[in-house]
């Protein structure tokens, strides 16, 4: 039972089944289960497989699903989707130098992204240097997004359509951890390339941070030469919970080009809180994240593009059976529920003083079966209520989704 709890909070134990390769050649790299792992460790805290004496470890995960959703009586019918296939390669270059890369194929091969590719050098537990393509530590989901860690087919709306998960950029920074009895304190601080003006100029017609990812050049060059700073502080009590506060701040517009000033510098700031815990006795695991976004949108632009946005989600997962199911010794069954809310436009119309709506709430009850810690079969019902800017009657989307996500 305990193992299950760990798993739902993102701590996964390696047990691997092997195909054609001679099993004796393969070493499992165990993940940390001491409870000292924080959300920031998620990139390395994954099941890896090493081959013989090679210093390289391999891993990955895949997510596939079926869904049948309808919006106000209109449905796209049965959809089978291969949402993503991700490969990680990790290697220990020297004793305290390691490298990890994560490459993701999304929606078939429609999108191929390097989510992470960074070298970490440990100078001291309190002082590690990371450089390369890093995942900005904003909120919790961005760094801890592996499909098999979650009990729902969809990623949270607030993580992908408010915050831009998976949000990675080229840059460097420092991180470190401090242990004190039952407490772990951690920090992360990075400077990376940042946002671009698509966040207020996109086909969504709303302030939309994920639109920044549409700029293909962003791994090559910074849009405006001003770095995006991302900082996070987290604290974990080993028996109770982890809490994180993160902040990301940058400039999104091209205020200057070829030495000529075009506009003033316009800021984008994001504040996020995240937390996760396991309720003692009940073993219920709770995982939540909330973010506020502030964008300096020109007064003379359209209010379709908001200056303020906020939203978040909470996942509540209750393990309810543990034991042998269909021969899987360590099976667990969970019931789970996700609640979500996103307001893409917090503000009032200049014309009427009335509230600008543009929000969504959702509820997603589900059940999941984990035949082993690294694999999850999940079935959920989803209900989204989405209201346009003007506050007209909602577009209601609902239906079932069923899928599998597994590390391999």
């Amino acid at each position: 039972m305990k193992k299950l709890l760990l798993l739902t909070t993102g701590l996964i134990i390696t047990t691997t089944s092997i195909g054609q390769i001679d099993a004796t050649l393969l070493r499992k790299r165990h993940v940390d289960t001491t409870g000292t792992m924080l959300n920031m460790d998620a990139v390395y805290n994954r099941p890896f497989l090493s081959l013989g004496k090679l210093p390289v470890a391999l891993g990955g995960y895949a997510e596939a699903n079926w869904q049948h959703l309808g919006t106000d009586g209109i449905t796209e019918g049965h959809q089978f989707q291969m949402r993503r296939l991700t490969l990680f390669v990790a290697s220990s270059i020297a004793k305290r130098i390691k490298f990890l890369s994560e490459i993701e194929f999304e929606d078939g091969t429609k999108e191929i992204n390097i989510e992470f590719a960074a070298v970490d050098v440990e100078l001291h537990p309190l002082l590690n240097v990371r450089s390369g393509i890093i995942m900005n530590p904003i909120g919790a989901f961005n760094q801890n997004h592996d499909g098999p860690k979650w009990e729902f087919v969809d990623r949270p709306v607030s993580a992908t359509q408010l915050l831009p998960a998976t949000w990675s950029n080229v840059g460097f920074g420092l991180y470190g951890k401090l242990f004190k009895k039952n407490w772990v304190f951690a920090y992360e601080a990075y400077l990376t390339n940042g946002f671009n003006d698509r966040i207020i100029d996109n086909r969504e017609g709303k302030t939309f941070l994920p639109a920044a990812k549409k700029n293909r050049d962003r791994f090559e060059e910074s849009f405006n030469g001003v770095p995006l700073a991302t900082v996070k502080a987290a604290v974990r009590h080993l028996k109770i919970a982890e809490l994180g506060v993160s902040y990301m701040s940058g400039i999104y517009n091209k205020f200057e080009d070829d030495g000529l000033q075009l506009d003033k510098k316009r800021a984008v700031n994001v504040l996020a809180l995240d937390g996760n815990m396991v309720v003692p006795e009940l073993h219920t695991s709770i995982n939540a994240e909330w973010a506020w976004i502030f964008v300096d949108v020109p007064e003379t632009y359209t209010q379709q593009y908001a200056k303020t946005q906020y939203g978040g989600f909470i996942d509540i997962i209750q393990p309810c059976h543990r034991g042998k199911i269909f021969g899987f010794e360590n099976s667990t069954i969970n019931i789970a529920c996700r609640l979500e809310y996103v307001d893409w436009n917090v503000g009032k119309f200049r014309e009427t003083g009335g509230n600008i709506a543009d929000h969504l709430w959702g509820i997603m009850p589900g059940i999941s079966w984990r035949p082993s810690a690294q694999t999850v079969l999940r079935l959920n019902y989803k209900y989204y209520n989405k209201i346009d800017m003007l506050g007209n009657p909602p577009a209601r989307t609902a239906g079932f989704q069923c899928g599998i996500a597994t590390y391999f």
Partner: protein
Amino acid sequence: MKRFLHVLLIVLSVPLSCKKLEPAAPEDHETLDGPVEGLSDEQRAMFLKGDIAFNNDVFTKETGLGPLFVSTSCGSCHAGDGKGHPFTTLTRFGQINEQGNLFLHAGGPQLQNRAIPSHQPETIPAAATFSKFTPPANTGLGFLDAVSDADILAMADPNDADGDGISGVANWVSLKNYITLREGSIDNTGKYIGRFGKKGAAYNLLQQTAGAYNQDMGIVSTYEPYDTFSGEEIDPEVSNQTVQHVVFYLKTLKAPVPRNINDPGVLAGKGLFTQINCSKCHVTELKTSRSSIAALSYQTFAPYTDLLLHDMGNALDDGYTEGSAKTYEWRTPPLWGLGLAKISQGGSYYLLHDGRARSIEEAILLHGGEAAYTRDKYKALSKEEKQKLITFLESL
């Protein structure tokens, strides 16, 4: 093990009852969007293309938005094809009589009050008069488009020959060079009857659409090739094909379906509507002539408009006009779909040309000019009768 199989079967059978647990489609009479009945498969495909261009094409800097604009997509102003909200209101300025717009050099006729970053939007020149326009519903436009000029003129009574105080005149407009005349168009010294827009200044839906791309979003086409910012002819930012798909979509949007038509209150209200002469302008029944779209040919429909201009009195005179209309004249707006206005206006009414009336009653009470007599008749109704009339209007 057996227990698990059972559970598994139950669990898996739930999604198979999927449709039941998905939100039902609203009834046809609860929404304004959707095609007219009787389209061919080919026409429905074209309707869909127009629907996507109208609702999903959100323009960005990259696809040509602005630099000066009012909004970023047709659908953002015409939500659900219904009436708009003050946020989506257009302002036009600079024309006081049929001599034309005096402020074309200063950005007239339409104010582009928004601009992409690092550009400054337009402002209304101090000397110019202006009027605000709240978007009308876009439903049933194909029917209105297919009414013959002769039928429209037959309703006009410029000299009030019948002595009811209501005249009604057509707006005679000059045609844009890209417009092809519809069958049976009547020529009045080189001008033709306009029938779309609050002043009735647009001859047809192509003019309205190409104009909207250009003036509302800063998107030029081969039809309207001049950029509103530079005044220069620039490369088209929307294809002719897309414009034509949108025109087809507008033409084939269904007419609003009335609700509670047999309700006694509604029926009584309908009687009063005719009795106190509302129907002299808000004409209850029109018919189409031949249309290239079979579903629109020779149809009788109930738009509650005569497509003519009427003197609405001083209170509604903003000192701005278009075509040959006087500043105090407005085209009778169709009342169909009135009861569904709130579902696209964010929950409350914004009626009359600029949305100033916050209820149906307020809209009626603001009628003046030719409608003053009718308005007074309304005022003289008993409380119950007024309620019935409004119940009827809400059923439309």
